[in-house]
């Protein structure tokens, strides 16, 4: 869908879970976008959207897709619904911002790439770190400031789908789909590793030579709750990706070591005063700001008829690396080691 001449993007938001609510708040704030409708199966979530002033609130997302007033959709659904919903959106001619990961597996991811391409809609996959301070590393690499990059270390360790103890006294339940690998498509490597692998592939614009992963099962779930992934690029750059769902504290960092310089970046621990201001809605967290930047960029791409990045094809490459990492993995449990 080409929107040349438009000054406002009419958005629909599908899914009002944790990430969906970031998009909800951000969509209401954007000057060149209008949130026309939301869809969610949970009555309580729909109530929140109504209270925030969203006029059209659907239980079934197919009604949102059929709404001709909407030209672009943000899909923040569980991974097992990505293919179905993204294809539906494409067939209705909607531009798409789809939350990462692209899909549960290569087959579903390939279908999304093919169907959106065929429909001629714009599709971007939501990787908020691309719109955070981690983006500055890309320009440092490209400028030659680091010399030739030899090694990179990427870490994304936190509580994953669970709630950290310091934020809640009575944590709410987590959606049970998170505990079913058939529905998630994988564990921490897919969920958190996709962020870091996407950054690495973007930074180095390189092809994969080899990948090996070590998967850990501390929490006795049928999918890994932590993983170490070692990647070798064809240019010779080596990278380690360290991810986990086991920690109470969030730790996201990237270190890139070049022959001239080293650059490192991490998500700062939120100070109490920042947390207090955030609770009062006076200051966004780094994470909220990244989601805001991402949505703003997507909307600008639609208005200016630019193909947004990361594209579905980019996210498909991330999925290819992760898929190979799963194929070439060694599994650790607390008490034993087993090969796949």
């Amino acid at each position, binding site marked *: 869908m080409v929107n040349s001449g438009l000054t406002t993007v009419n958005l629909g938001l599908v899914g009002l879970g944790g990430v969906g609510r970031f998009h909800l708040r951000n969509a209401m704030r954007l000057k060149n976008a209008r949130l026309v409708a939301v869809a969610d199966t949970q009555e309580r979530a729909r109530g929140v959207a109504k209270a925030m002033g969203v006029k059209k609130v659907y239980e079934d997302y197919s009604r949102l897709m059929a709404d001709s007033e909407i030209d672009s959709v943000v899909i923040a659904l569980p991974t097992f619904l990505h293919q179905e919903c993204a294809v539906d959106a494409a067939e209705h001619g909607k531009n798409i911002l789809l939350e990462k990961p692209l899909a549960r597996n290569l087959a579903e991811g390939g279908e999304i790439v093919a169907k959106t391409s065929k429909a001629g809609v714009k599709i971007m996959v939501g990787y908020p770190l691309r719109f955070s301070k981690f983006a500055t590393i890309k320009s440092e690499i490209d400028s030659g400031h680091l010399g030739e990059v030899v090694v990179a270390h990427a870490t994304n360790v936190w509580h994953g789908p*669970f709630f950290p103890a310091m934020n809640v006294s*009575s944590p709410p*339940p987590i959606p049970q789909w998170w505990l079913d690998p058939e529905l998630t498509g994988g564990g921490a490597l897919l969920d958190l590793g996709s962020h870091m692998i996407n950054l690495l592939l973007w930074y180095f614009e390189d092809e994969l030579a080899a990948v090996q992963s070590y998967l850990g099962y501390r929490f006795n779930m049928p999918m890994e709750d932590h993983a170490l992934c070692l990647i070798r690029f064809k240019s010779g750059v080596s990278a380690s990706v360290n991810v986990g769902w086991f920690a109470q504290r969030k730790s996201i960092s990237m270190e890139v070591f070049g022959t001239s310089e080293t650059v490192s970046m991490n998500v700062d621990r939120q100070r109490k005063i920042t947390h207090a201001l955030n609770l009062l809605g006076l200051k966004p967290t780094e994470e909220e700001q990244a989601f805001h930047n991402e949505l703003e960029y997507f909307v600008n791409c639609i208005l200016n008829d630019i193909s947004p990045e990361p594209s579905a094809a980019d996210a498909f490459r991330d999925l290819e690396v992760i898929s190979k990492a799963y194929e070439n993995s060694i599994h650790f449990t607390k008490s034993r080691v087993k090969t796949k």
Partner: protein
Amino acid sequence: MSLVSLVSSINSDFQETIQESLRLIQFDMHSNIKSVVIKPDLCYYWDHTTGLTTNPHVVGDVIDLLRSSTSQSLDVLIVGSDTQAAPCEVLFKFLGYSRVATKKNARLVNLSKTDCHEIEVNVAGTPYELLVPSVLDTADFFVTVPKMKLSSEFVVSCALKNSLDIIQAQNRAINSSPIDAAIVAANKALKPDLCLVDGTWVRGKQTKKLGLIMASIDPVAVDSLAAKILGINPQRAAHIALAHKEGLGTITPKVVGDSLAHYTPFFRRTTKDKVWDLISKMGLATVRKLGIAKQ
């Protein structure tokens, strides 16, 4: 005079530590006991090394010890309940209890799915009719293996709070009662025969690895000592004060084994902590009052 033993383990073999803690309180397990119920604290998907859930290795060693004191055929039930946050069976698996149960030939029981009977108790003149899982009456022995931790809701969570978890699922109405009275009512209905507090990892302001096992037959006494170790005056926790007042135990027990002073430096509260607590409490109350917190 209630006795509470404090013993710390040097390594992660807790059996000797538990044995010593029981010896110090002169605990004698009757050899004719045929079945035992063990209640760990399984509040959420939090690893035991956060200090928030009971260490499954401690429970495994408790099972070994109980069997060695009674009979190898002792029927052991590890119990939990569904919570708002998670189904019990999922937490059993997630937190490593399924593995312990298999290894130690114990049964895992979700109390939310078992038969109950009604018990009437009285707390501060108010009668409470509680549905209590019958399995706790039919078992010969009830061991509570709580965590000791700071709690924004209860000030301190330990043995007394661990009993509330058992009845909450079947007694939704109790959630509308004052929380201190609810905890005391639960403990009147379900007084443990033995409290073995898992202080291997302790959650205060930060998590600390203490390797501590605390034993007593008095839940009020262990809660009082847990509060003191965590830097809290036990009287500040309304449920501990009420439980003491209602005759469930003492807040001034005799400490045996390690001295209390050995543990109190770990969680000593500074004036800054106390001021911040006050500000947080007032700030949160104001935010709630004004309704300006985020949706």
